[in-house]
């Protein structure tokens, strides 16, 4: 997974360099970094991360090293940590470039994960990475404010407790909704718990079952695999909004006519997945339908009547 970002800071490269080499500042600003303890070797630290991300809340321990210093222009950060649920190996380069009296700071790197954390899926991970990178630069900016400057000399082993609410605006089923949400809140939790749209269901932690599928900017996505903050500015349709006038949508009707549901738990996700399938291919063959819905588990129907339901809808939609 690739991470990158850049930010212009109102300070000299020397001042920024000082910050980037202060372990207390690094500990404070690196999202998820709970502790950073100096080790004998210079520029090498014992690092403890506490990653809170969707269903994951777990500790990781390992090392953080600063290498290839070229004062005050660049250095490379190497992180290797291990936790009960997997490993994270990350490596990235910070580059500083004077721009007038300001400094352009850029970061470019790559991260590799194993274990449960890797299974979160590319979309979530890159979303999180983007958010973490932005948070880091915003933190740097705060550190450079004169008032905040005095706080910099904190103690080593700083523990990060802060959680922040982030404002988002989302259009859901045609209605504009605005809320402040925790960065770790999943989109499906936002829909179910904040908006009380309980037609969207949670069936797994791994974006494998599709029960949480919603239409996100015209595409069927698994809402357990997105953070609510990633939905800022998005347009979302849930099962409750598929047929706003109280009539059944032809796909809903198809499921009713062809007995495409039993317990009903997978059904909203299945219907919205079928919606995307028919948007892309209005006249699918049985095989194409089976391929199109294979990301959604149903444990009741054996899928045969779901295939018929989608066909029924395709015919009705013409």
């Amino acid at each position: 997974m690739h991470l990158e970002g850049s930010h212009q800071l109102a300070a000299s490269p020397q001042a920024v360099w000082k910050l980037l080499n202060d372990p207390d500042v690094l500990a404070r600003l690196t999202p998820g970094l709970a502790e950073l303890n100096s080790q004998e070797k210079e520029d090498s630290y014992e690092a403890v991360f506490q990653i809170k991300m969707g269903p994951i809340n777990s500790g990781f321990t390992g090392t953080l090293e600063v290498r290839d210093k070229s004062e005050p222009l660049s250095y490379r950060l190497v992180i290797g940590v291990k936790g009960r649920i997997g490993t994270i190996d990350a490596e990235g380069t910070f580059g500083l470039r004077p721009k007038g009296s300001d400094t352009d700071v850029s970061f470019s790197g790559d991260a590799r994960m194993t274990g449960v954390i890797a299974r979160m899926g590319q979309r979530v991970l890159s979303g999180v990475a983007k958010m973490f990178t932005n948070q880091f630069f915003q933190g740097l900016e705060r550190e450079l404010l004169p008032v905040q400057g005095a706080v910099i000399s904190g103690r080593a082993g700083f523990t990060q407790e802060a959680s922040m609410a982030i404002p988002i605006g989302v259009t859901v089923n045609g209605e504009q909704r605005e809320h402040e949400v925790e960065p770790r809140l999943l989109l499906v939790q936002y829909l179910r718990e904040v908006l009380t749209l309980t037609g969207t269901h949670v069936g797994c932690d791994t974006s494998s079952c599709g029960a949480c599928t919603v239409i996100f900017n015209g595409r069927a996505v698994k809402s357990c695999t997105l953070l609510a903050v990633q939905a800022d500015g998005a347009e979302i349709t849930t099962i409750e909004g598929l047929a706003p006038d109280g009539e059944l949508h032809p796909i809903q009707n198809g499921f009713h006519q062809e007995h495409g549901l039993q317990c009903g738990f997978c059904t909203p996700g299945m219907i919205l997945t079928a919606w995307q399938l028919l948007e892309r291919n209005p006249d699918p063959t049985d095989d194409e339908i089976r391929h199109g819905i294979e990301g959604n588990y149903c444990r009741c129907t054996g899928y045969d009547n779901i295939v018929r339901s989608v066909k029924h809808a395709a015919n009705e939609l013409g």
Partner: protein
Amino acid sequence: MASVRGQSVKRVEDKRFITGEGRYVDDIVLPKMTYAAIVRSPHAHAEIKGIDSSAASSAAGVVAVLTGQEMAPDLVGGLPAGWQVDFKNGDTMKEPPHPPLAVDKVRYVGDAVAVVIAETPAQAVDAAELVDVDYNVLKAIVDVVKAAEPGAPQIFDDVPNNIVFDWGLGDEEKTDKAMADAHHVTTIEFDNQRLVCNAIEPRCAIGDYDGARDHYTLYTTTQNPHVIRLLMCAFVMGLPEHKVRIVSPDVGGGFGSKIPHYAEEVIVVWSSKKVGRPVKWTAERSESFITDTHGRDHHTKAEMGFDQDENMVGLRVKTFASMGAYLSTFGPCIPTYLHGTLMQGLYTTPAVYVDVTAVFTTTTPVDALRGAGRPEATYLIERLVDQAAHEMEVDPVELRRKNFIPPFDGVNQPGYETQVALVYDSGDYEAVLKKALDMAGYEELRLEQAAAREQGRYIGIGLSTYIEACGIAPSAVVGSLGARAGLYESGTVRVQPTGKVTVLTGSHSHGQGHDTTFAQLVSDSLGIPMEDVEIVHGDTDLVPFGMGTYGSRSLAVGGVAISMSLDKVKEKGAKIAAHLLEAAEEDLEFAEGSWTVKGTDRSVGFGDVALTAYVPHNYPEGLEPGMEFTSFYDPANFTFPYGAHIAVVDVDVETGVVKLKRYIACDDVGNVVNPMIVDGQVHGGVTHGIGQALMEGAIYDDEGQLVNGSYMDYAMPRADDLPSFETGRTVTPCPHNPLGAKGAGETGTIGSTPAVVNAVIDALWPLGVRHLEMPLTPQRVWQAIRDASN
């Protein structure tokens, strides 16, 4: 109005599910609700040396951290087994305590150790990480055969060799002699692998204690709310039942995993009283994998003997059945009374003996999984038959036909008494096989197979002719076999003054479509439209009593209880109608919702009679007002659905990939109320069985960790793994069941697994492949082909 009984009426319940208005437990939010996260053992077997919850207790939002030490004094017992199966020598089965929160020892990964209750789910999960449990880790044991060997790690101090009970059924001596004298003996030894039910809705429970009324409400994802109330009140918490209400609203699939009484149900109810607020727990999928009861996990050696004319002369079975770490609600019953009793199959085998040893292992407890015992029995019998056919070089169809029990309807011919304690109700096994063969085009398939082999392609045709047992009863019999409850069902018909009808049923729908099927029964009986009928289930304060839905019992037991109440309604209605029409009761006939004086046009409608019952101004003398009846139905016998399934597979011998080309299911489930719903049940059941044959299986490592405990790792059938199913039926009504119904929820699972495995073995027999362990993954198939060629 034409009768709707027997028609594929579209489902009444669909609308709320397709519009997102279903109401599942996790959708419920109560005022002042708190959220529970459960601290679970990461070890399969360990002593608890201490629990430090100080950090968790002071974490943000935490309301309480509670442990087993605190819970134990408030309980009268542990989670119970609902069935007691004793040792051959009469000793009581080993039933060590199963505390909802472990006190001194944990016995599987996922065993609950403490509960953290907080203001938000996230705070509860965060704080649960801070609970520090000091474990002394002990050796795990996951293999069911090795666990019973001397020297294996002892899971409980007073359960020697981890053996829960040993049990036998049939005539052992006669069977040994028959096997010794047999002309040919076919033997198979295999694992019927452990499966995970994986209902797509994770379990959820909300406890709500009302201090002012000293009353408990539990919302829970269960298939049988009254059973949960019975077990929780009587065996675990010592609560009076009138102070406890269990609500089980829409439930997102069960498949057996939502039968048992679970630790979390006790935890939320007990802790709600402790904290004085509602407590909600919702399983994450990874939690479901390790705490929902698992199914199967048998190791079996089975032998079938034949005389020189290929007549079956004996069947001898030895099974080791894992119970997991504790006895679950139906745990002990499944490998015995739902497995051993099915060993006759459809055949006239004169000597049968089955021996079962039930064993504790340091794994998730084992209970029902769609079919529960009957799939395991059918798998071994039907694998043996196909294997024997190959070995003796006879057609598997002919071998079955030769040994079938002849047709009997249970009325003119008596029921068939088996060697293993059952009396089959009615059956024409040849007829269902013939229909399946016709649907499949069996002769052409064999020609196609031969032609394909010429071209180096390996098509396999697998058969399975099964029988199963549903609606286990009567209560007196199951009681004598060790059931700790009756197995009847209740049905209340409440006629409203307007002539509309509310039905209260002890059955529970979690996908089966009871709102529709039961309404069809009412509409057919009373001649009123289905829209005038409402079915109520899943609330112990509304429904008088019930044993719930499992073992395909809803229509065959629950439906009959409703039907009995409908008869009582009509009986009383006739008295009122006779009074209103000033005619004798025997001169009336009831049809299409009206009582008519025979041979006249004088009639009174059901609605007028209902109104009269509640506004009895002009009313028969001595008759009570009102129109409501409750009936309890305790069946005279089990019901015995049966059928013939045929799988056609294409095996790629280069890669080991099995492609299921066709699947034919021809079943006899007795009389059918809604064919569309029955077909849907067959589809789902067949898919479950195909899953076991080709994909599914819980894998534990030697440390007792479930290695594939997520949807990323545990394979289940997806839409593109399956063909379209071909279903057919014959109808042989059940003679002792007033509806003639037998049950349709599990036939598919029971019939399909051996049909698919038989098909793959059939494809690969010419290559020398004689045996495959399930699931038949490409790797295993490829390896077997390779081993056979060396």
